[in-house]
């Protein structure tokens, strides 16, 4: 029987390997399944380098929920939320940004992390999520950041996956912003 997780993995695979940038419109109640599917997908692709930017949940919470992430040798985290939430623990596979408002610093950390990866390795970036970034920042600055990031990742041949967690009051502008990506994946229960 095909589960939602299996179906999501397949769709992630189809979308991210073919397209340079993918926008994911994700209902809040499917967030956990999607992240689980994504992490499972990352685990079976050890040949690729992944950078996961977390604004939605602290690294510690993700690790608690989805198991030991230090086993993923091909995955580095950039956590923008722990320090702002008063969590001071450190982990070797995670870089911490003081605050989700420090978008330039986030851009630098993404660049620096990918700099350590061999040129021939396929590179993937996950932004989790644009909708959380606008909780801490104004829409204009997130838009500017996203444009800058999209240009940078394209120039460096980095595949990107940007999440927007849909809620009833999801900002319409944010919905438009995500359409800057080459492909949009709308996660629905009907995937099964």
């Amino acid at each position: 029987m095909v589960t939602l997780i299996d179906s999501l993995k397949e769709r992630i695979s189809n979308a991210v390997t073919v397209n340079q940038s993918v926008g994911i419109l994700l209902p809040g109640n499917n967030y956990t399944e999607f992240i689980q599917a994504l992490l499972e997908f990352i685990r079976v692709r050890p040949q690729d380098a992944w950078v996961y930017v977390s604004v939605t949940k602290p690294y510690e919470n993700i690790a608690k929920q989805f198991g030991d992430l230090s086993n993923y040798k091909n995955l580095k985290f950039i956590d923008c939320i722990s320090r702002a939430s008063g969590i001071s623990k450190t982990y070797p596979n995670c870089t911490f940004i003081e605050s989700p408002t420090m978008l330039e610093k986030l851009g630098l950390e993404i660049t620096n992390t990918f700099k350590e990866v061999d040129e021939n390795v396929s590179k993937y970036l996950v932004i989790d999520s644009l909708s959380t970034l606008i909780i801490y920042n104004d829409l204009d600055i997130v838009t500017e950041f996203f444009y800058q990031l999209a240009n940078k990742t394209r120039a460096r041949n980095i595949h990107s996956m940007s999440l927007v967690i849909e809620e009833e009051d999801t900002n319409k502008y944010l919905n438009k912003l995500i359409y800057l990506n080459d492909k949009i994946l709308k996660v629905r229960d009907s995937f099964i």
Partner: protein
Amino acid sequence: MAEDNLCKTGIEELDLQVSGGIPTGSTVLMVGSSGSGKTTLCMQFLINGAKLGERGVFFTITEPLFKLTKNMEGFKFYDKKLIESGMVNLIDLRIISERLGLNTEKYSIEDAAALLDVLRDIADELNVKRLAIDSITALCYRLQTKEMIRDFIFKLGSSLAAMKCTTFLTSEVPPRTFQYSQYGIEEFIADGIIFLGDIERKGDLIRTFQIIKMRGIPHSRTKFAMSISSKDGVELAPLLKSKA
């Protein structure tokens, strides 16, 4: 300008913004308030120079040496061996003043001239290519009148020009002000001015970096966000323009 005539700071984005490096022999005023990153930038400039084989001297008058080295030990770029080998020399000007029998809190014009001679002798003797004075403001503070400060600054300018080494002078200004110096004279001996400031975004302070002038070379005047981390030291990224 030929590569040989450029002094690479080793801070990638900074070098890019000044067409590859600061013209060798320039005096650059590094302006900023407390915590803006002046001292770290100067030390990174000297350490990176030493790694390229260029000897440097850091003259401090604001911070005891043990504190300075303790603060630097956390940075990955900092290499204690370069200090021990004499490739980067850390000199406390207050100790020099004491040894010269000068009043360390108040300088006469003769005292200041004597200090300048020592500074020049040290730079000559060590064949220094890079110099940092932290800070010009604290040095001038010890002079009693505006005339003395003016005279001292111009003599310092002539001495630095004669030494032909690339110099960073730090200048302390009050926070959130757009002025280059405390006494309004320091900028006139500078070939370059770099302004370190900050902006507030949703209550968080973002350090900024902007080249105001750099004689003899095309340069950017864009405002950058400046990050200081133990891993990478000073790094620059274009500042997002949208207002918070």
